């Protein structure tokens, strides 16, 4: 292959909170500094910074990437901000990966920050502008519409009930009870709680959704020679993939995320994975809504079409199941600071594969994990595969 091996050698994160007293810049600093400290590197060791953050409209700060640079450790360094909606949190480490894989940098700091709480009265207002300004916005849409339309299509296609899907929310909010940074942990939540929560946009109810959150996460990526000097337990980036579907979202059947499949196939091929269901030991698919975890497991080829709910009901995706899914607690449990939430999933794989996940540790000494994020107008899939050894 024409690229160098790249390892994750350090990670850090802030608590995920509904509204943080810290500014975005301060959150970015806290996560980035923790990530560097965790592998005993300093800013002098960092050759470049890859930053991920969602639309400037959330913060009301134009050129938010530039605003965040000082907190992200980018002073007088090559800096790049990338953005693909909710897919950003896995897209940013992909940018970091090719900065190192190409030979350009030996150490790249990846920082994802989100401060959604600034937007008043609710960041839904900022989400409005994702719809087409001429053919859709005059209808008065809100972001829940597209999720509800997709969820309903998915449910109808396979004859699923709300209770089949609520199991995901229950699993992830319970998993999050063991995550010290979680906003939405609930060790006692039941399917009934989800089914009785307020209907927002049928079939979406309040506990099907992860709410707006503030927080930041950072990773340190390093080339092989640096990684072997700074840690005994490098976690290698084995494969990356991403794909974007048409913005003409009403011209596609929303029941299946084909673009996620394309992204996954790209990553599996790079990682040499032929049988993902046997070779992926932990999955952290994007779960801003409970049905999305199921939808994405199918797109990632980790479940047959329409079968992800059954795997959930049978406990296969539980932390102690054969294929633990979102052992972190996911967005539904830990929280949903958009870009930071995606990178939190990659950080979770890093800690799980190193055996440092504490109470969240999945049994059986996993060696390979996958994280995925998703976003835009039901449109983008971003996938990263991490592994130890080899």
């Amino acid at each position, binding site marked *: 292959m024409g690229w160098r091996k790249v390892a994750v050698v350090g*990670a*850090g*994160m*802030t*608590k*995920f*909170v*509904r*509204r*943080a*007293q*810290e500014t975005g810049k301060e*959150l970015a600093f*806290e996560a980035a500094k923790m990530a560097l400290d*965790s592998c005993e590197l300093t800013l002098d060791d960092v050759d470049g910074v890859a930053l991920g953050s969602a639309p400037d409209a959330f913060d*009301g700060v134009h050129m938010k990437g530039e605003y965040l640079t000082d907190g992200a450790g980018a002073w007088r360094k090559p800096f790049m901000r990338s953005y693909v909606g909710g897919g950003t949190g896995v897209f940013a480490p992909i940018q970091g990966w090719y900065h190192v894989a190409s030979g350009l940098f030996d150490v790249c700091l990846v920082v994802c920050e989100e401060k959604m709480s600034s937007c*008043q*009265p*609710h960041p*839904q*207002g900022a989400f*409005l502008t994702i719809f087409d*300004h*001429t*053919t*859709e916005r*005059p*209808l*008065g*849409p*809100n972001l*829940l*519409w597209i999720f*509800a*339309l997709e969820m*309903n*299509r998915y449910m*109808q296609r396979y004859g699923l009930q709300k209770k089949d899907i609520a199991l995901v929310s229950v699993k992830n909010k319970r998993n999050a009870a063991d995550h*010290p*940074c979680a*906003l939405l942990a609930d060790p006692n939540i039941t399917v009934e709680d989800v089914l009785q929560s307020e*209907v*927002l*946009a*049928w*079939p*979406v109810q309040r506990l099907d959704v992860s709410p707006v959150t*503030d927080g930041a996460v950072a990773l340190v990526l390093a080339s092989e020679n640096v990684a072997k000097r700074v840690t005994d337990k490098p976690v290698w980036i084995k494969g990356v993939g991403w794909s974007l579907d*048409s913005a*003409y979202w*009403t*011209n*596609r059947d*929303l029941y299946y995320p084909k673009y996620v499949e394309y992204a996954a196939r790209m990553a599996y091929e790079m990682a040499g994975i032929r049988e993902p269901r046997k070779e992926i030991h932990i999955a952290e698919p994007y779960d801003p809504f409970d049905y999305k975890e199921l939808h994405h497991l199918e797109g990632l080829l980790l479940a047959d079409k329409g079968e992800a709910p059954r795997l959930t009901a049978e406990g296969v995706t539980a932390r102690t199941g054969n294929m633990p899914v979102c052992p972190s607690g996911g967005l539904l449990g830990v929280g949903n600071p958009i870009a930071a939430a995606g990178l939190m999933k990659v950080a979770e794989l890093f*800690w799980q594969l*190193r055996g*440092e*996940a*504490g*109470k969240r540790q999945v049994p059986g000494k996993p060696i390979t994990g996958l994280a995925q994020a998703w976003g835009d107008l039901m449109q983008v899939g971003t996938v990263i595969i991490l592994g130890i050894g080899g």
Partner: protein
Amino acid sequence: MSSKIKEYPGTGLRESDFREKKVLFTEWKPNARYAWDAGIAIGRYLAELKEGRILGVRCRQCRRTVVPPRLFCEWCFRPMDEWVHLQDHGVVNTFSLCYVRWDMERIAEPLIPAVIEIAGASPGIGIMHLLGEVDPQKVEMGMKVQAVWKPAAERVGAITDIRYFRPMKS
């Protein structure tokens, strides 16, 4: 979070801290105004809506007829070949019953956004619009629906020239 790390940064605020001004913050209200050009293809779409017709466009290479119309085929990456008048009815591909507005304020009567596959376009090709004159609990996928137009004199060349789609009378 790694079990090796014991201290976690980040200070959560309560909604009341903010409401009661127990913490310091600055407010700003942008006055952002835009005028978006409709463009060539959507401009024609809007002009046809004003006439009470739904316009699609066809690519001879992939043989798709799509709506909303576009100047080029994003699959074949070549100019579209012909404008096609579609029917002003179709079937509900998917829908939602939405009880919140864009700012999360609650509403008692749900809005019913839907993707409606337009008759005359290729299978599965739809537009987003609203459903009306229907009991929300009786909406289902596959339901045939008909556009309800504003009177000609009130039409301005906008997607809202169609008020909503209602169930078709058989």
